[in-house]
Structures are given as structure tokens and as C-alpha cells.
């Protein structure tokens, strides 16, 4: 395997507290040397000038939908793992709402084999917590964990029954795996397709209130207070949810919250004109919610970022607003959108953003144990080089994802991954802006 010397970049490794200019030497599948002084290149090494760029641990997205098996016209493990690389992500965790649902160890094996065959980003499975994601019967979580499932979720659906939720939390606690909740009280969202409010009132569309998210988180943290599992609230949309999570964390619970680029940047008025690219679950809400979510990231209440990459075919999104599926894709444009919402707004700095995209999700999914989410000597050479100043325009047509459902299409943004290494293999190389 090849040797690469990443020269003169700003090395940010939040897990070890490093933020300094330096060199990083990748040899084979591992990091061989990390130094704040110059490393002389071994013979045959490829030297990559990283001046002006951030050298970070490979980015991790703990929440993507890769649609395989069953909906390969939307995305496959290969196309999704390729899209991850384009966006700077070296690891993704795929949700189990495939057809069939990922609720058996053999399906966890299937995902791993497909990901190996693809040879792009690492793909880990978030296994279904209940059989068929129906919320009725526990899935074989222990066997799935042995097969490599990194966490559990019925994402796409909420676990409705409090009794079942308790069983799932007890099982996850015993396995030492996180449970990721899709927080949606179905009785409050029946017929809902967008945020309940003035825009929905004018368009005549069914409203989906923020309280539908909040009541589930409230219920779950109360259940979990007696169980002590790692409880993760996915794709937060409401400022009200933040308060509940803060209270649980202050009380010492291992509760985390996740937010997506669209909930940090967009509001429900984007649904005007029955724009299905603005239809997502949970729905886009108000500017007040956007502000509260950004503030929660700044305050360390929300510690995980996830794209909720949700591919849908063009014809599916072309249906009328009520019939069109929920969701948008995010992997290839998430990084500059996070930077815009969180760094450019002054909420946090780049080192914190890197932490939110690396060591934080690694800890959530137990990936830090195998050296992911950090840059350590002898650790896996999963590295993302980011040019934080690179200007570019999001062009959904150019995505390698099989889908095009992106409301950010045409947005001018700043910041992009220039080099991506997975297991020491260079999978993406772009020329940084200052070298163009």
C-alpha cells in the first residue's frame, strides 16, 4: 500500500485535544506519525500540500438511509457509500428501514459484505430494535450486536408502546449499545405533512406539531431514568425538545441529541408552492426553532450531527405534496451547510464542528474503541482533509448519489472535503482553492 505525507495542514483531533499546524504520515492502512514539526517524507511517499486546510479524523455520519436491500432505485450501499466519500465522510451508519428491515444478524452481514465489496466509506448497521420495525416484538438484538450492529433503532417509525420502549432500553443497556429514537407520536401526526402553523393553514396541508416530538422524548427519558441506557434522540426539529434533553443530561443520563443540516438552516415557509423538496420527517419548523437548535449545539446540549440522508427517486418527489415521500439527501453537501449554520454564524468554531462530526458520533456508536473518530499513531488511517475556504455551488445533478432530492440545489457554499482516506486508501482528491 501507498504512503502519503499530509504536509502543513491544521491538524484538528478533538479526542486528543490537538489543534496545531503539522504533518501527518499515512503508511498502509494506519497512521504512522503525527507531528507538529516537519516530517521528512519517506522514499516513495506522495506529499500532499495541506497548507490552509484542516486535517481531521474521517467524518462520521451516524444517520443515513442507503435503501439496500429493497429500494435500490433510490440508493444502494455502493452509491451511498460513494456519496459519503464525496462529502468527506469515511464512516456512515445506515438505518434499518429497508425492505426487508435490517432485523436479523444475516442482514447485518449482508450490509457489511456489500460495503466491503463497494470499497468506499465504511458502513455500519443500526439494527432494528423490533421485528420488522413493527414495535411489537423484540428483534434479536444480541445476535445482531455480535454480527456488528453498532446501535439500534426503528427509525422511520417511533416505538409507540411505552412497554415495548422499556424492553428495548433494557436490552440496549445490557448490550452497551445506544438506542436511537425517531421521536414521533403517531396519534399527533396523523394526516400531518408539514409543520403545523400559518403556512400549513394557508396551503390547506395537514399540520404536524412540534409537541409530537417532545412528548416522545419526555416519555423516553422518564423511562430511561430507571434503565440508564444510551438514549439518542434523532433529527431534532423543535426548540422544546432541547429543554427536555438538557434536563436529562443535567440529571446525569446518557442522553444525546442529533440535528440535521436542514433543521439548522431551513424553515417551513420553504413548503410554499407545495415544494416537495421541503417535505421531511420531522418537518421544517420556525426560525425560533432553528435558532434554538443552533444554540443547543453551541451550549453542548446537542452533540451529534446527522444528515438523515434520505434518497427518493425524482418521480416519487414529483407527486403531490401529501403523497410525496418525506426526506432529502445530505451526504454530499452537509459539510459546508454545517459550517454555514454553525461556524459562519459564530455558534461554534471548527474544532468543535470537527468533534461533532468525528469523536462524538464515534462514541455514540462505540466506534472509538477501534480507533475511529480520532487521529492516533497506529490507528486506522481514516482521514478527511477539509478546505474551509473553498467556494463552490451545490449541484444536485452532479451528485454520485442515485437521487436528486436536495433543497440546497444551487446554493453557493464555502468549505469542502479535498482529500478522503479510508484505511489508508486515497478515495477522493480535489485541489484546494488556494492551489487552483
Amino acid at each position, binding site marked *: 500500500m501507498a504512503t502519503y505525507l499530509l504536509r502543513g495542514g491544521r491538524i484538528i483531533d478533538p479526542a486528543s485535544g490537538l489543534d496545531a499546524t503539522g504533518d501527518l504520515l499515512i503508511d498502509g492502512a494506519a497512521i504512522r506519525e503525527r507531528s507538529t514539526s516537519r516530517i521528512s517524507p519517506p522514499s516513495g511517499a506522495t506529499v500532499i500540500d495541506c497548507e490552509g486546510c484542516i486535517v481531521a479524523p474521517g467524518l462520521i455520519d451516524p444517520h443515513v438511509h442507503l435503501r439496500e436491500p429493497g429500494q435500490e432505485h433510490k440508493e444502494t450501499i455502493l452509491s451511498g457509500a460513494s456519496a459519503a466519500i464525496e462529502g468527506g465522510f469515511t464512516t456512515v451508519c445506515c438505518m434499518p428501514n429497508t425492505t426487508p428491515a435490517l432485523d436479523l444478524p444475516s442482514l447485518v452481514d449482508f450490509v457489511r459484505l456489500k460495503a466491503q465489496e463497494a470499497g468506499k466509506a465504511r458502513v455500519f448497521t443500526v439494527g432494528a430494535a423490533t421485528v420488522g420495525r413493527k414495535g411489537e416484538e423484540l428483534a434479536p438484538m444480541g445476535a445482531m450486536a455480535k454480527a456488528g450492529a453498532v446501535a439500534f433503532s426503528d427509525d422511520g417509525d417511533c416505538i409507540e408502546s411505552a412497554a415495548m420502549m422499556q424492553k428495548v432500553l433494557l436490552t440496549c443497556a445490557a448490550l452497551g449499545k445506544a438506542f436511537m429514537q425517531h421521536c414521533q407520536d403517531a396519534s399527533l401526526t396523523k394526516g400531518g405533512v408539514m409543520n403545523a402553523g400559518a403556512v400549513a393553514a394557508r396551503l390547506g396541508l395537514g399540520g404536524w406539531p412540534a409537541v409530537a416530538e417532545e412528548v416522545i422524548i419526555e416519555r423516553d427519558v422518564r423511562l430511561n431514568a430507571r434503565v440508564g441506557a444510551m438514549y439518542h434522540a434523532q433529527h431534532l426539529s423543535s426548540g422544546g425538545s432541547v429543554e427536555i434533553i438538557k434536563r436529562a443530561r443535567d440529571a446525569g443520563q446518557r442522553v444525546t441529541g442529533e440535528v440535521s443540516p436542514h433543521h439548522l438552516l431551513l424553515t417551513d415557509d420553504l413548503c410554499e408552492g407545495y415544494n416537495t423538496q421541503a417535505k421531511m420527517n420531522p418537518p421544517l419548523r420556525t426560525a425560533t426553532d432553528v435558532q434554538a437548535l443552533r444554540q443547543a449545539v453551541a451550549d453542548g446540549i446537542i452533540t451529534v450531527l446527522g444528515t438523515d440522508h434520505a434518497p427518493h427517486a425524482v418521480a416519487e418527489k414529483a407527486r*403531490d*405534496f401529501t403523497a410525496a415521500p418525506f426526506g432529502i439527501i445530505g451526504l454530499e453537501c452537509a459539510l459546508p451547510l454545517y459550517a454555514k449554520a454553525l461556524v459562519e454564524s459564530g455558534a461554534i468554531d471548527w474544532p468543535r464542528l470537527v468533534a461533532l462530526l468525528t469523536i462524538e458520533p464515534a462514541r455514540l456508536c462505540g466506534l472509538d474503541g477501534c480507533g475511529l473518530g480520532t487521529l492516533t499513531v497506529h490507528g486506522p488511517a481514516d482521514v478527511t482533509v477539509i478546505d474551509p475556504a473553498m467556494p463552490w455551488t451545490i449541484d444536485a445533478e452532479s451528485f454520485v448519489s442515485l437521487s436528486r432530492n436536495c433543497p440546497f440545489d444551487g446554493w453557493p457554499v464555502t468549505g469542502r472535503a479535498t482529500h478522503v482516506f479510508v484505511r489508508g486508501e486515497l478515495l477522493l482528491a480535489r485541489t484546494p482553492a488556494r492551489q487552483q
Partner: protein
Amino acid sequence: MRYLASVHDFLQIEGLTRMQLEQLLDATNGNVSHAEGRQPAKSTLDGKVVANVFFEDSTRTRCSFETAVHRLGGEVFTVAAAGSSASKGESLVDTALNIEAMGVAVMVVRCAISGGAAMVAKALRIPVINAGDGRHEHPTQGLLDVATLREALGPLDGRCVAIVGDVANSRVARSTTKALCLLGARVRLVGPPTLVSRSMEALGAVSGQVQVSHDLDAALHDVDAVIMLRIQLERAAGSAISSDYRILYGLTQARIRRLPTHAVILHPGPMNRGVEIDDSVADDPGRSRILRQVTLGVASRMAVLERAVIG
């Protein structure tokens, strides 16, 4: 998705200027004698075919458009596709494209999908008229409502109109409220909190123009008109209605006495007599303008059809 990208489409009241709405009202007035059969049919649609494409059941609106086409000298056929696979969003457009290819001049569309008429209009080259799309708008009903009120009350600036019932699920309430606001009237939306939410106040052009109230008795003393909405059980409003609906929100003979003497009563029909409105109120010759709405509905739809083919 485009709205009124073609001036010939008539998809929603929202986005119209006051002048555009007043032109339609003037045209409606000019059509009344034709609509009543006192003058012979016009020749505006001579040699033209209009398609009524109804993905949702309707009697009144369908017949009204059919009559309006006849009064303009055109030919009309109706496709009743309710309940078929064509009521789904994808084939809505496909069905419309097929009918357009038959050489029709104008398409009138009703469907259960909010935003459905705009979807069809986007796909078609011919003018499209929205005859009701889901819970979004029913703009010709909005037009005929304000035409009826203007005839009864004169200019609507500063007037106050109560719209009572299942506002949340009503496309009529949306179109009529927007039209009234455009003409400078105030609107009071009245009904149970499960069917009339505060967010409906966003329908107003300016803050305070639309008020939400859950107390019908307190809402009647200063209104110039009351528009009763049909309780729409088919739109899943059922679970939001309790058995005391009539006691709280029915327009009973006793409640009528709270109204100013000049106030008139409208209802888009079909009525649930004895539920949202008493027989004697619906048939009150002094106050009820319910059948006049139907006549002016034909005149209004003539105006909209003329606008579609002439501009």
C-alpha cells in the same frame, strides 16, 4: 410550482390583486341576466369544448360549471373519476394530459389533493380552473361568495363576516376569507378549537383582519353576514366534533335573533339541515342568500371561463 403563471389559469384567490378580483366581480354582474336565462347565451365559447375533470364527487359545482359553459355557447363534458385509481396524484396529471390531447380549450379540475390543481396547470398548456383542491382553495366559491355579499350589502370595505364551522378542513373558508380580506372586509372564523386554530389568522392580508373565535354567541352581534360551513365528515373531521356541536355552533332560530337586522346568511351547500343550520334559518326569505349563491355561482364561473379564453 407555478401559480397563475398563465393569467388564464384560475387556481387560487391568494395572489390575485384587488383589481383583478373586482374585474371578475364586475364581469360576474354582467353575466347575471344570462345566468338567469333572461338573456340568450353568449358566444364566448362558441366552437370550444370545456372538460370538467372531477376526481372528487360533486353535484352543485359540476352542474354549475356545465351550465356556465352552456350559457357561454360552448360544449362541455364531465369526467367523474372519483374513487378510481385516477384520484391518486401521479395519474391526476396523466389523466389531465390525455384529456388535453383531445383538443379541449379549458379544463376545470376538482381533486382531493391540496395543490392538485396547480400540479395539473403546471403540466398543461391549456387554461386550468380549480374547482376545489383538497383543503387548499375553492376559488370560484370564494368569488361567488363575495359576489353574493356585495350584491346584498354593497361595498365590503369595513364589513365583518363570520365563517362558522369546520374551518380547518374547508377550502371554501380559505378562498372566501382571502377574497373578503382582499376587498377590505374583516373575517371572524368561528368553530370548536379542534377545527379552528389560531394559525388560521394568517389568512388575513393585514394583522387583525382575521380573528379566530370559539364562541358563536359572542361572535354574531356585529356581523354583516354569516357563512355557515358544512360539517365535512368525509374529511376526517369526525373525531374533532363532539355531540354538543349543534348546541355550540349550530345556526339556530334562537341565535338568528342576535344578528343585526340587515345581516344575511350564506351556506356553500350541501347543507346538513338540523346540524349546522336550522330548516327555518336556511329557508328564511329575509336573510338567506343560499339559493342566490347558486345563481351567482353560474355567473361567476362564466366570468372565470371568459377570463380563461379571452384574458
